[in-house]
């Protein structure tokens, strides 16, 4: 429990630091006056609104005070109001966030399902033609950018065979697996190579360990040796990488979302940037930072699940 408590404190510190920088940067970049100007311009409001808007931004307070006020609202889910769309930012955020998270989760599941068996086979048959074939194929996938992969997959599955939709509904539901298939697969295939290589390397090292020789001398089946004995101690790098790339993917699905016309976080933030929708940008970055930190916190906890020796530290 002490382990969890220590990590939880770290989580809060990292989160505060990240959001503070985001909060400061969005204002510092243009300067407060520019922000107020653009709000008034969009609202077509009169100069009499200026004082109101400035108060809403707490413009007279020092930066740390403004951050605390913003953060205090943010933890209750209040990220302010988009002056471009005239709606609460939190309302704008919920559905796109769910869609993007679902996309990333599905992509990771597909990537892991492909990478784990491939990595195990490549390690077990290291330096044979099986290993070389699997490794070369994986590198080939890695070399193709995911947007090229997406277009290729759309051509194949949506245009030619017509089995999966190439464009998703504008009110895409997160359990609409059929619509999610192509976007998830496009993101997943690039990850497969990375995960497979990491697992292969760790697995080759693990297979040299005495306890694997011992498992063999017990007369266990090869499958049991690979999956029960070797996989878990070989998966720490894989888990780290999955954690980091999950965070990166949440902020990096923009292009895939555009290709499949998916109204997700990427689409939301691109629009916000072009329209100077400051509160939306702040909220999106805060949410991504939170997700990033939270996922890596979960990864740390997962290490302890994987390796009992970490628990006693």
């Amino acid at each position, binding site marked *: 429990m002490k382990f969890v408590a220590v990590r939880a404190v770290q989580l809060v510190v990292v989160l505060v630091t990240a959001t503070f920088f985001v909060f400061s940067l969005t204002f510092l970049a243009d300067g407060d006056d520019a922000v107020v100007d653009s709000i008034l311009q969009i609202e077509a409001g009169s100069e009499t609104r200026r004082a109101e808007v400035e108060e809403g931004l707490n413009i007279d307070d020092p930066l740390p005070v403004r951050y605390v006020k913003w953060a205090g609202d943010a933890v209750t889910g209040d990220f302010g109001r988009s002056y471009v769309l005239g709606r609460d930012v939190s309302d704008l955020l919920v559905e796109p966030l769910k869609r993007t998270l679902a996309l990333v989760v599905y992509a990771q599941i597909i990537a892991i399902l492909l990478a784990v068996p491939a990595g195990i086979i490549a390690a077990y048959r290291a330096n044979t033609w099986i290993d070389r074939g699997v490794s070369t194929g994986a590198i080939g996938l890695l070399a193709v950018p995911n947007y090229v992969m997406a277009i290729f997959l759309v051509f194949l599955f949506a245009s030619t065979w017509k089995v999966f939709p190439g464009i998703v509904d504008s009110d895409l539901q997160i359990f609409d697996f059929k619509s999610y298939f192509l976007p998830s697969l496009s993101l997943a295939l690039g990850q497969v190579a990375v995960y497979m290589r990491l697992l292969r390397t760790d697995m080759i090292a693990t297979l040299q360990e*005495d*306890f694997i020789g*011992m498992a063999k*001398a017990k*007369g*266990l089946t090869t499958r049991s040796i690979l999956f029960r004995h070797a996989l*878990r*101690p070989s998966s720490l790098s894989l888990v780290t990488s999955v954690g980091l790339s999950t965070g990166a993917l949440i902020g990096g699905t923009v292009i895939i979302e555009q290709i499949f016309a998916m109204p997700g976080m990427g689409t939301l933030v691109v629009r916000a940037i072009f329209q100077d929708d400051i509160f939306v940008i702040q909220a999106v970055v805060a949410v991504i930072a939170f997700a990033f930190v939270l996922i890596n916190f979960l990864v740390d906890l997962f290490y302890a699940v994987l390796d009992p020796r970490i628990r006693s530290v």
Partner: protein
Amino acid sequence: MARRITATDSADPGGPLLEVTDLKTHFLTPRGRVRAVDGVSLTLERGRTLGIVGESGSGKTVLSRSIMGLLPKSNVERTGSIKYEGTEISGYSQSEMQSVWGPEMAMIFQDPMTSLNPVMKIGRQITESLRYHLDMDKAEAHELAVSLLKSVGIPEPAKRVKEYPHQLSGGMRQRVVIAIALACGPKLLFGDEPTTALDVTVQAQILNLLDAQQRERFMAMILVTHDLGVVAGRAHDIAVMYAGKIVEKASAKTLFSSMRMPYTEALLESIPKLEHKSHTRLASIPGRPPDLANPPRGCLFAPRCRYAQPQCLEEEPPLVEGDTPDHQYRCHFPVGTPAGDEALARNKAEGRTIHADDVEVDVSVATSAPAGGAS
């Protein structure tokens, strides 16, 4: 796939448990063919203990793994015959061996700090082979695991089954390794330096435990060690290995009372003795074992031997029978014989023990080319 070996049914129960004939195990390395085991024959009866003694690189570990079939297939060439309960097992496939490993043969590895899976509970590491080989259900296997841990002297076994290896000391871990090896009731147990990695205080306990278990289960045991002291008083027979070959083999009593091979004598002398005064220089064997990828002509021990004569550097001595039955050795000038005494006296008179001046093999060559691959 047959789960249980069928040898028990077909074999003559009166025959030896294990019969190894002219076993060779060569590693094909970029440096060439490393002859880690080079023509070893041995026989082991049920319930007997055979000690295999030799220094690092003598091939004793490779021998035990080769007999058990645990070496990788690629770049390893194994020839010769291995008969277990009268059945030839050297041609067995990996899946056929899987039914031999555990219920028939088991191995205790050298280092208990690395031979247990660090991320698996101890209980599970014992029960998995019980469940697989003996078709036990979860409860039965758990119960047997607890009683196995108890029998190898682990306190609070019911609590320990739920713990991970890192929660146990080295000695306790080796007891767990022994419990795992004994789990399926093997008829033949290999101990590969089972006490080398342990504290001296724990070594005797572990050896006594092995002794007791062996007697109780009427199990045959092959104890591989570099320490003649470990097998003294424990092994019925001792085989001394050098450079992949057995250089002397006898019952323990004969070996210690009338050894013939200078290497055996040198090994025995290198054990420090309590009656020595403090600061007595430790006896050691000069040089190193020969490079097994490029073995010298003649007797492989000759470059390090104080009895060596010109003949030894030219002609490899065959394995000859000694005065008593079951005593065999490879030496032209055996210890304790007139020929040996004379050879030693001649070397002493000439003020040197190694005849290296008129041949290409000398100590410095042997030293600068350590044996690789074999340990």
